[in-house]
């Protein structure tokens, strides 16, 4: 990790792709730089001023030349754009069956949470060759989660979750940096990424004695913060919510990913589930981002009751890569799932304001 090098290690699926562009553009750049140096030096020598009163001929310009040096670089630039865009889009695209790690940035440390319960600070252990999905949040200012050896980098903006996918492809230890200036401790907000064999990873996880797994902690929070008092009764159940599509009161449909759950807890009124009253209180400034991670982990475990998407949803529905078995019994009500066996049951005592009624 801390030895001198000229070129960074390539330790993820993205690294070779990024480096390929890099070398391609380096080649073009080197070509132009060398070309210009050669031309300048040649001209400076060949056409040096030989007498003080020398007057060279007038050359106005040359249209074909101008066109050539507009069109050729432009074509090269388009190739660069296309290639770069391709890799970028690929890097932002979800990978199926990824292990989700929760990452929290705060002044000035990174906290990483494994689904099985491992919690680390300024360290992240990941298994070799297994896709990883990072769900990142920030407690305070903008941070940036950057692993140069993986060629990934993502600003982490407070108030929303950022996601990033990658597959580690090389064993070893790598640097983790915070790349967005975040205050005094910015340069100490660094850490270590350890890529391990799958078996070592399992052993590491097992050796990790978690005080409490995130979902267990989430369950505890769900009960102690009174979520359970509403949810399942006068509020939609959490069962099968994660990765389902939710019909909102304004008629739009959203995917219930981590970002949505996060927002629903902090900002319940931003997106109101169709046919429910906006009574849920905001938990902003009450729950920390870490607690929210736990809550979401818990909500995710209530996955098993999902129903298959019905005809109402466009089949192009994004992601949702895990169609859950449809045979499982549905416990609790899940009126917001689509198809929406019209959930006309309003919790007693609540009147939906007319402007919030779904059209």
């Amino acid at each position, binding site marked *: 990790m801390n030895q001198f090098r000229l070129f960074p290690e390539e330790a993820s*699926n993205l690294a070779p792709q990024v480096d390929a562009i890099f070398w391609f553009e380096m080649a073009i750049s080197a070509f132009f730089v060398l070309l210009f140096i050669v031309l300048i030096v040649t001209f400076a020598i060949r056409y040096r001023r030989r007498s003080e009163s020398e007057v060279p001929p007038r050359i106005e310009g040359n249209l074909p030349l101008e066109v050539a040096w507009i069109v050729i670089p432009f074509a090269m630039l388009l190739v660069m754009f296309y290639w770069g865009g391709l890799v970028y*889009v*690929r890097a*932002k*695209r*979800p*990978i*199926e069956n990824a292990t989700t790690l929760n990452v929290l940035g705060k002044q000035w440390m990174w906290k990483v949470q494994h689904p099985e319960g491992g919690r680390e600070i300024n360290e992240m252990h990941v298994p070799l060759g297994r*896709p990883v999905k990072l769900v990142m949040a920030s407690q305070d200012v903008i941070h940036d989660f950057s692993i140069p050896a993986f060629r990934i980098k993502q600003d982490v903006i407070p108030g*929303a*979750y*950022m996601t990033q996918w990658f*597959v580690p492809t090389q064993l070893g230890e790598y640097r983790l940096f915070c790349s967005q200036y975040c205050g005094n401790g910015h340069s100490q907000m660094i850490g270590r990424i350890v890529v391990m064999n799958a078996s070592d990873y399992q052993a590491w996880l097992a050796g990790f004695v978690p005080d409490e797994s995130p979902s267990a902690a989430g369950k505890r929070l769900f009960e102690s913060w009174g979520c359970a008092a509403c949810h399942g009764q006068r509020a939609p159940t959490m069962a099968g919510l994660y990765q389902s*599509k939710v019909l*909102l009161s304004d*008629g*739009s*449909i*959203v*995917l219930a*990913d981590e*970002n*949505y759950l996060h*927002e629903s807890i902090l*900002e319940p009124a*931003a*997106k109101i589930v169709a046919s429910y009253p906006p009574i849920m209180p905001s938990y902003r400034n009450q729950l920390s981002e870490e607690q929210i991670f736990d809550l979401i982990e818990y909500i995710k475990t209530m996955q098993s009751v999902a129903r298959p998407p019905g005809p109402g949803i*466009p089949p*192009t*529905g*994004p*992601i949702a*890569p895990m169609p859950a078995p449809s045979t499982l019994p549905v416990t609790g009500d899940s009126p917001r799932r689509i198809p929406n066996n019209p959930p006309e049951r309003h919790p007693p005592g609540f009147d939906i304001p007319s402007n919030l009624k779904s059209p």
Partner: protein
Amino acid sequence: MSNADIKDTRRVRRSPSVGTYFLIYVVLLLLLVFTIGLSLVDFGHHWNNLAALLIAITKAFLIVLFFMHVRYGPRSIWPFAAAGFVWLGIFLTLTMTDYLTRNHPPAISPRGEPHFLVEPQSR
């Protein structure tokens, strides 16, 4: 120091008559009444917004063309009068390319995420 292209802008300065000013003024007031009226009726908010903005743009045009004499002054003023608004348009449009296609917070677009993210990538 008068040169070719300055000269061509130095045509005799016409300016609108007092009558024109009053006419424009009346039109402006009518537009004002009209836009207030429209805002009290619900056509579906997109149409309301569009109408209100179009009327505002019309009013601005009238003011620029007549009260500010752009219609009567030299041609060379036109790009100056337009530039600010054109650049504001650039600013607004390109900023909106981001906000209208963001996927977080999710589902500013009803479909959720941009659709090329749909097919999961297998490594």
